[in-house]
């Protein structure tokens, strides 16, 4: 059991939208083990964004339990959640979300600032993370001096720098052309091969095909959960 990274039981989440109550998640169960590579899919309104926010500890459930790496996250307060996000989660966003005036290295160091790491160690680990995504020679460039693929790789380096339990990517290739998307997918595959747990939310089947396991949501529940067949070469 100790290699369970994520354990979600009977999770519900409802929002009040004016007078209406929207049930985004209706009793969802999900388990993800260490070093899995999972794609979460589903049509819009299926609850995949809500689930991603839950897994990323940005939101808490209305009911049910969420255990992340042995800690029950579902009952935590704001500050505790912030610390969990800082330690356990590496976010990769569709729109990269880099600080425009900061260099690649500075962007990558940002999570370490909130972890209270010393400047010297931040720099060393930032450089190491950038090297891992193949950007050792672009450390002092600003985002507007980098291509879209390079920007997303900076964002991935930022997600990795805190050595998180899970890399959580939300439509990571949504803003990239197909050649660059392939480049990013190769980075994910390499990280997975090195032992990183990767969770990717996407609505593109082609992108999901890169994952080893595909979870499809519908109406706030898991509709299907299958292992991908290794692609024919």
């Amino acid at each position, binding site marked *: 059991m100790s290699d369970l990274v994520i354990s979600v039981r009977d999770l519900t989440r409802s929002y009040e939208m004016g007078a209406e109550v929207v049930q985004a998640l209706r009793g969802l169960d999900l388990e993800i083990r260490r070093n899995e590579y999972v794609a979460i899919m589903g049509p819009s309104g299926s609850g995949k964004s809500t689930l991603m*926010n839950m897994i*990323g500890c*940005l*939101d808490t459930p209305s009911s049910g339990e969420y255990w992340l790496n042995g800690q029950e996250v579902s009952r935590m307060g*704001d*500050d505790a959640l*912030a*610390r969990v*996000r*800082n*330690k356990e*989660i590496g*976010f990769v*966003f569709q729109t990269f*979300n880099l*600080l425009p*005036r900061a260099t690649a290295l500075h962007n990558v160091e*940002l*999570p370490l*600032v*909130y*972890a*209270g790491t010393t*400047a010297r160690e931040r720099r060393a680990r930032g450089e190491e993370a950038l090297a891992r995504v193949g950007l050792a020679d672009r450390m002092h460039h600003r985002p507007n001096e980098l291509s879209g693929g390079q920007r997303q790789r900076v964002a991935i380096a*930022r997600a990795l720098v*805190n050595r998180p339990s899970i890399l959580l990517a939300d439509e990571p290739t949504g803003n990239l052309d197909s050649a660059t998307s392939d480049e990013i997918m190769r980075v994910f595959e390499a990280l997975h091969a090195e032992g990183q747990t990767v969770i990717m939310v996407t609505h593109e089947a082609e992108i999901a095909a890169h994952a080893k396991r595909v979870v499809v949501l519908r109406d706030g529940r898991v509709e299907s959960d299958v292992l991908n067949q290794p692609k024919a070469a």
Partner: protein
Amino acid sequence: MIPLSRIGEGVLMALDAMRANKMRSALTVLGVIIGVATVMTMASIVQGVRSQIFNAIEVAGPTTFYVMRYFSQTPLNPDNLPYEVRIRPVLRESDAEAIRQVPEIQYAGMWIQVFARLEYQGTQTQMITVWAADDHYMELQGGTLLRGRFFTRSELTGEQVMVLEEQTAEHLFGRLDPMERTVRVNGVPFRIIGIYLKPDNIFEPPGQETAGIIPYRAAKYNLRYDETNTLWISVKGRPEISVAKAQDLVTVALRRERKLRPGVPNTFDLITQDQILDIMGSLTSAFFGVMVALSSVALLVGGIGVMAIMMVSVTDRTREIGLRKALGATRREILLQFLVEAATLTLMGGLLGILVGLGLGEVLKRVLNLESSVPLWSAALATVVSVGIGLAFGLYPANKAAAMDPIEALRHE
């Protein structure tokens, strides 16, 4: 909880943001700059004025005091005097003579401050002060006679002669020798018999600079002046008696001269240097108070400007705030980031304001011929106040940023 190094990083980040928006930042803190600069300038002027008043009184000697028809902190309108002033007689030479009869009194003389324009062959001065006094003028006011002489006994009877102040002489005559030439004082001719150099650091407000000294009677017979506000008897007791004692003796002598019966109030007022010092002190404090009030308005406006621009900045950077929260920043850390940014902004404004204030103070000191330095406490206070303004007015926007929901913030377009 929050390490000091985090604040240092916040300051660096804020400076970086300011560099990116130089114009916007400068306009934002303009109010703070103006407010701080005003306080600094005023502090240095008030300081200078005070020290020169002390200087002037030191020259005149603390034993000098004055007899006036009526003493009022603000000049009275000579055309519409209140009843209690009108019933008092105008000071006469016989009053001064009566005081002079007291053995303990070293000097008593009629003095008039005449406001006048001086003119020599078409060259004119501004409105300045001509003192109508006697040959003891320098004993009371200090200064030195550069050339010529003071009045002779016979000239004191009303000869139209004048000891001209050195700078005024240069202004009117340039390289000409002013001696024995005739200057017109409000149109009345006066012959120059001497050149006088003012003591250093004498306090003279604009319009009251000494331009020359003429005999008392020459003014009395030929010039118009205000008998209530600008006519008095200057009195100096012998060094061995106290000012209080001298004042008592003068009061007795004047009451006898004016034949006032016991129980009847005095028909004159005595003013000591201490009283003048007090008045000057309260005037400069009032002036300073007004300037502080005005500059606090500027600081308030500056603070509101900072608040407005921080609100804009928070909205502009909603996604950045969302990102920082996603990466693990707590509420407190976001709050601190924006507070530090606001305080850095206003601190920069405060430092600029100090520089501007120092510069302005320097210029005004030259113009007003003051001698003073900016008090250190005012610079320290300005720094603290400007940081305080940043913190106070940055609190609301910073709190707004800290309270943002990371999911909403990340979704913000």
